[in-house]
Every structure is written in C-alpha cells, then in structure tokens.
C-alpha cells in the first residue's frame, strides 16, 4: 500500500467512460435548431495590402445569411494571447498565407463553400519576409510596426568571458530545430449563439476558455459578463488550442445574424492557420574541465517566430533558462532574438521552447563526451542537478531533484534492452 492517498495508486480517468461510450460531446457534435454553417475567406498570399474585396456576389447568393469583413466588427479588431497583434479579420494588411479576410454564414455547408468561391479579392503584394535572416537584414520589409524584432532575452549567470581560460576542452556547434504542427486529431470547431438574456455563448474546442471570453467580449465591444465560453470535450491541443480558433468568427456571425452559427475547420485549414512549434537555431559554445565538469556555456539563439506573437514571449522566456538542461554550470549566457516574418505563426507547443533547448544541451553533452573520450552517461552524471545546485536563474534547488536517479534507472534499462547500442557508446 502506498503511504499516499493518490500518488502511486491507479484511478480510471474521470471522464473515460463517456469517451469510451462515444457520448462525450466535442464541439462539432453540437447542433442547434435554426443553426447556420460558416466558413472563412483566407488570403492566398503571405504579405499584401487588400486593394479590393468584393463581397457582393457572395451576399447575393440565396441561402447566405451574412458575409462580413472587418468593418462589421463592433469592438476591437486585435487579439493575441500575450501581444494583441492579430486581426479577427484583416484591416490594414495581410501578414501570412491564410489570414482571414471575410467570414460567411449560410443555411448549409455547401452554400458556405459556394459563397466563399464567389468572393473576389485583389492584392497589392509586398515582398514577403521568409526567414530570421531576411527579417534582420537592413532594409527588410517590416511585418508589424517599426521593427521585425518580436522579442529579445538576455540571460547572464556567472562570468562566461572569464571562464574560458579555466576550460580544458571547448566544443562549438550550431543546432537548428524545425517548425512543427501539433496535428491534434480533432480539427478546430465551435458554435456561437445569443441566448434569451442577450449573452453571447460560445462552445468551442479550446484549451483557453477564459482567455477566449476576454477576446470575444473585446471584439464585440461588450462587457465580459455578456459572454460565456464553454469548453467542449476537446480532441487534443498540445498547446495548439491555446490560441483562439474559430471562436471570434462564429461569435461575430452570430452577433450579426442573431442565429446560432457553427464552424468546423477542415484538416487543411486547421493545419494552415493554427500555431506551430518555434523553429530555433542555437549557436552554442560549451567549455569543460578534463574530468568533465561543465565550466561555461554561451548560446546565441535565433528564431523565425512567424507572422503573429502568440506565445512567443513565453517561449523566449523559457528556452534560454533551460539552455543547459539538468546540468550544473557556473557560467551561462544566452542571447535570444525572435523575429516576425510572414511564415506561419508559432506558439505554445508542449514545453514552450524547452524541447528545442534540449536538442542543444544534449547535443553538446554528446560532443563533449566525444572530445573527452568519456562515457556520455558518466559525463551527464558528473554534471547532474542535485539538491543544492544553483541553476542559471539564481535559484537553489532544495528538493525533488530526481535526475540522477532517473538517469541511473534509464541506464539500467538500456543495458537490459539495448546492450549492443550501449556497448557502442563506450567505443564511439
């Protein structure tokens, strides 16, 4: 028996039964009487001014209840989880492929699709910014405001510059991680309706109903107590449903049509416009003593954060802090710059930049082991966090530091299930 009531005991997941029976209601499973279907007209260029947007033909199609552009927004046309830099519907300019230009509500999904085909747009295209390097180049087109620098962080611990003299070995490498889609199995979906009290109700596939409520209220220009957001059973998010999905668009259409409006994104649309994992490049210099103790780590971190901020300010806060991973190092410096570009927006994705940092610190540990001709697990054990370790934020770890035990267990298991690979570790 465990000495705890919960830890080390097994419980069935609290809502597993309804999911096993198929009775759990996901956002697309809601249907209401008199409900309209809806869709979004999106840009097919990454960076442009809208010269002309002709909604007349779509509006004239019988069965179409509303075709709206940004002029229909009663409140604020800027949202975003940390920085309010994304429009509900484009007003000034298009910043990425797939930016929303107009929304349509109609009696059937087929009519929605037909109406979307009838919308005509003329672009005045701008040179797109396609990478971090392009964003930082002198004279680069500016994606937002005055500069393409979206966020910057500087981490300084100990004295890196003075530490190199104390190192017997220095390894330098550059690591790049790629952009990645969450590919949650349930495409984004939602439904909005005004109830008899005039409260805007939104039922959605979301990880952030409380944030959604603020955004919907601000967009409609109504107090928060006039908006209710209900999280439907949600089919995976992994951070990708922290940013608002269909919620603003269905709320705007329900506001104007005074009817329930449902929107379900296709897999293509969901993948195109939901956030992505930040692709981060880390140029890293690591120094250690002959017996494998880390002395200094110096990293320059750059990132193409895409067209909108999303969780970028949180990711850039965490990736540098974790740049040496679970290893003690008395001298650490990290300079990070995230840039706006016209690529897909990057946001929260399981770990907020920490997995990207792991590619760097684990790569460096392997490189260091090779340079020192040392067992890579032994090298990690020599540097492992323990109670009393001071980490690069200045915090002293006082309890619950399980890394050494975990690594020893992992080594034990690896020797059992993959002895050949473990033998190679010694010789490589």
């Amino acid at each position, binding site marked *: 028996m465990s000495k705890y009531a919960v830890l080390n005991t*097994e419980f*069935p*997941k609290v*809502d*597993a*039964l309804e*999911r*096993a*029976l*198929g*009775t*759990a*209601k*996901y956002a*697309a*499973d809601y*249907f209401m009487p008199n409900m309209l279907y809806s869709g979004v007209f999106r840009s097919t260029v990454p960076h442009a001014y809208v010269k002309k947007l002709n909604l007349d033909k779509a509006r004239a199609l019988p069965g179409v209840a509303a075709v709206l552009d940004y002029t229909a927004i009663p409140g604020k046309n800027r949202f975003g989880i940390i920085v309010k830099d994304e429009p509900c519907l484009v007003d000034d300019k298009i910043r990425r492929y797939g930016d929303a230009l107009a929304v349509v509500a109609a009696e059937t999904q087929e009519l929605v699709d037909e109406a979307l085909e009838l919308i005509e747009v003329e672009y005045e295209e701008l040179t797109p910014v396609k990478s971090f390097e392009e964003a930082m180049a002198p004279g680069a087109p500016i994606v937002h405001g005055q500069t393409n620098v979206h966020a910057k962080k500087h981490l300084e611990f100990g004295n890196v510059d003075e530490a190199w003299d104390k190192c017997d070995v220095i390894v330098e490498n550059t690591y790049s991680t790629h952009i990645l889609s*969450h*590919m*949650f*199995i*349930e*495409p984004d979906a939602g439904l909005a309706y005004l109830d008899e009290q005039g409260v805007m109700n939104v039922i959605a596939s979301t990880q952030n109903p409380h944030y959604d409520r603020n955004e919907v209220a601000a967009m409609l220009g109504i107090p928060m107590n006039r908006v209710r957001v209900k999280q439907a*059973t*949600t*089919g*995976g*998010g*992994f951070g990708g449903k922290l940013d608002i999905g269909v919620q603003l668009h269905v709320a705007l259409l329900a506001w104007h049509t005074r009817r329930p409006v449902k929107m*379900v994104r*296709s*897999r293509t649309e969901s993948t195109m416009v939901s956030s992505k994992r930040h692709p981060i490049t880390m140029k890293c210099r690591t120094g250690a003593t002959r017996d494998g103790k880390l002395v200094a780590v110096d990293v320059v971190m750059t990132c193409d954060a895409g067209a909108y901020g999303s969780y970028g300010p949180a990711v850039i806060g965490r990736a540098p802090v974790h740049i040496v991973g679970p290893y003690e190092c008395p001298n650490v410096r990290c300079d990070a710059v995230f840039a706006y570009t016209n690529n897909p927006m990057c946001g929260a994705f399981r770990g907020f930049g920490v997995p990207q940092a792991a590619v760097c610190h684990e790569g460096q540990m392997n490189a260091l082991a090779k340079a020192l001709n040392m067992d890579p697990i032994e090298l990690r054990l020599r540097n492992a966090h323990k109670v009393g370790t001071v980490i690069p934020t200045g915090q002293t770890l006082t309890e619950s530091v399980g890394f050494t035990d975990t690594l020893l267990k992992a080594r034990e298991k690896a020797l059992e299930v993959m002895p050949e690979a473990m033998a190679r570790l010694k010789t490589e």
Partner: protein
Amino acid sequence: MNKITVHCTVNHKPVSVEIEPNKRLLDMLRVNLGLTSVKEGCSEGECGACTVIYNGEPVTSCCILAGQAEGADIITLEGVSVDGKPDVVQQAFIESGAIQCGFCIPGMILTAEALLMKNPHPTMEQIKEAMSGNLCRCTGYKKIEEAVALAASRM
C-alpha cells in the same frame, strides 16, 4: 439536388434515410442519424477517426458515399455498448488508461471490435497490424495495444 433513400442496418436496426447523393456515410451517420460518436479528423481516410464496422470490416466512413451503403450492415460505437454500459472492449480501454482526449477512441474501439470478432485471440503483432490504420496523437499507442490484448484475454 434530388434526394435518394438509403436503406441499411445501423446498430442492429433497419433504417431508411433520405439524403443528398453527394453526402458521405460519415455525414449520414452524424447528421441524419445523430450518431456523433463517429468523428471526422482528416476527411481523406488517413486518420481512422470515422471508422465504423461495415459488413464486418472496419472502414473509414469519410470515404464512402451514403448511397453506397444501400443494404449494408453498419455498427457505430453507439451500437457496441449495452444499455449505456461499456462492453468488454470499452471497459478494457478505460482500465488500461488507453483514453486521453478520446477523439480517436470510437474508431480505435470499433477497429478492435472488428478484429476480435474475427480473431478472438490475436497476437500482439496482429493487434498492432489491425490497429495501424487508426491514428492517436495523445497516448503513443502502447496502452491502446494493451487494452485490446486485455479485452481479448477476457473473451
């Protein structure tokens, strides 16, 4: 568009459904019959979330037109549970911790049911092969495979 009438058996009961001929079996089950356990994940037969048992075989209902289902015997997750209680496969999924977000689970369970109808004592390799057309983004599959094995052990 002129509607067609589709006659088939759904969850052990005969039904006839009036539906536009361009609708998929997925639409017929979800919208016309209200069987919303059938999930739409990719709309092109890749993810397996819309799997139903169709004449004894697990098939993706997004790739079948409603009209093709004339005379077919179709089972969705609603037709598996007995009086709102989980059957042996559903129970095994719950106990094994195989369910996280749950969106893939109707398809997973139906694929497992179809396997166990034909082969009540599959090997782990046979389970993995049978389940390979159903994607899960949360669990990493191990617990799903264990759930199918647990169900088989109780049959």
